[in-house]
């Protein structure tokens, strides 16, 4: 017994080092698997508060750019409104389907990163704004990512610029599905993998979300085809996609709440069992 105590006291530095390094290593390993980085994340009041203070100063610097983006979006929305008027008015509203399927909440980006293998954003909405894990996040131009961790006031978003993220996407022209991944090289490009060889792929075609998951509705813009290669097996295409969003200058984002997601999830779980 005495010898054990002596051993501990003699090697206390080494033992403490091993303990702390073990903790750090387990946290790292945990952060490499999807939706497992619960403990250490920037959705807490300390980090959120600091980022909020910094953001309240920094947001003045790109007001002009943000205004332009808003005006562009308004133009699109106005066009849609004018062109759709008179089309839907003759339809009687069925009261049993009266509830909205999607709701949208706006949020401000407090922290953005795009140069590590797994990138996260921090936004100023959290549980009290009824944000939950696995809600989709978009801007007026295209998709941004998926909500990862939430605290009371803040949330982190797993960006599409992440090795962990795989998002169902399709070619807008031919409806061929694939999954959107990122090879960590450039924040302006993502890769669309597993597109069938029979798809007609043309440079400049639009890629949109596929709508096969409950996270994103169908048809939200992602990007344009920059180039494409055939896989080593020759069965599938890997497409280089130039993203519509400039992921380096995000300021205002929208969170999509799918009111049917609970129902879809329970149904899918039933199928899995």
């Amino acid at each position, binding site marked *: 017994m005495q010898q054990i105590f002596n051993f501990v006291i003699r090697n*206390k*530095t080494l033992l*403490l*080092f091993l303990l*702390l*390094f073990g*903790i*750090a*290593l*387990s*946290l*790292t*390993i*945990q*952060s*490499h698997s999807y939706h497992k*980085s619960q403990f*250490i*994340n*920037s959705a*807490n009041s*300390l*980090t959120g508060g*600091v*980022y909020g203070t*910094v953001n309240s100063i920094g947001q003045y610097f790109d007001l002009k750019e943000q205004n332009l983006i808003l005006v562009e979006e308004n133009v699109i929305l106005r066009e849609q409104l004018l062109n759709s008027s008179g089309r839907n008015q003759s339809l009687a509203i069925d009261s049993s389907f009266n509830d909205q399927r999607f709701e949208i909440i706006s949020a401000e980006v407090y*922290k953005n*990163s*795009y*140069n*590590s*293998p*797994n990138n*996260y954003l*921090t936004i100023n909405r959290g549980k009290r704004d009824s944000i939950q894990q696995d809600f989709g996040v978009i801007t007026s131009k295209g998709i941004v990512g998926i909500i990862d961790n939430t605290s009371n006031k803040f949330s*982190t978003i797993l960006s599409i610029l992440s090795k962990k993220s795989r998002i169902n996407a399709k070619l807008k022209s031919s409806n061929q599905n694939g999954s959107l991944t990122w090879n*960590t090289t450039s*924040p302006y490009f993502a890769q669309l993998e597993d597109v069938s060889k029979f798809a007609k792929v043309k440079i400049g075609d639009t890629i949109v979300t596929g709508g096969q998951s409950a996270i994103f509705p169908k048809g939200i813009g992602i990007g344009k085809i920059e180039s494409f290669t055939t896989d080593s097996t020759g069965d599938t295409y890997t497409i280089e996609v130039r993203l519509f969003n400039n992921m*380096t200058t995000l300021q205002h984002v929208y969170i999509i709440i799918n009111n049917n997601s609970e129902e879809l999830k329970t149904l899918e779980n039933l199928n899995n069992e």
Partner: protein
Amino acid sequence: MNNSITSNIIRFIVLLLVQVIICNNINFLGYINPYVYVIFILLFPVNNNRLLFLILAFNLGLLVDMFLDSGGVHAGASICLAYARPLFLKYAFGTMYDHQNLKFGHTDIGALIMYVSGCVIFHHLIVFYLEIFNISQIILLLKKALFYSIFTVILCLLLILLFKTRK
């Protein structure tokens, strides 16, 4: 003694804030951000309690991780650097290190450069190894570690020389 404790507490907080608010938004050449918080580990008094030093380094790394959403990457690298620091001290400063009253501001500039570069490269290799976590991307790992290290070393040396105590 009291003075040293206060200055280290201030250094801890200021370096953390500088790292999080300024240095993570530099994105030099599109992606390079210096990790200047290692200055705290580099300049921590040599003769002080090593257990305390390890715990402080771990907490600093963990706070940086929290701000950057990077799991335990920086905590792991910081604790390794804190544990391995005597090796770098011995390597860079030789016998002077044994006197236990090393003042970093007054040392030979060549030895200081050796010390800072050794520590920073060691720290960055661990950071990127843990971050990428894939030995097949070793080229990317080394490339990133090299570029980030150059930037961090330059910035650290400038900051250390700028804020050195004149006596």
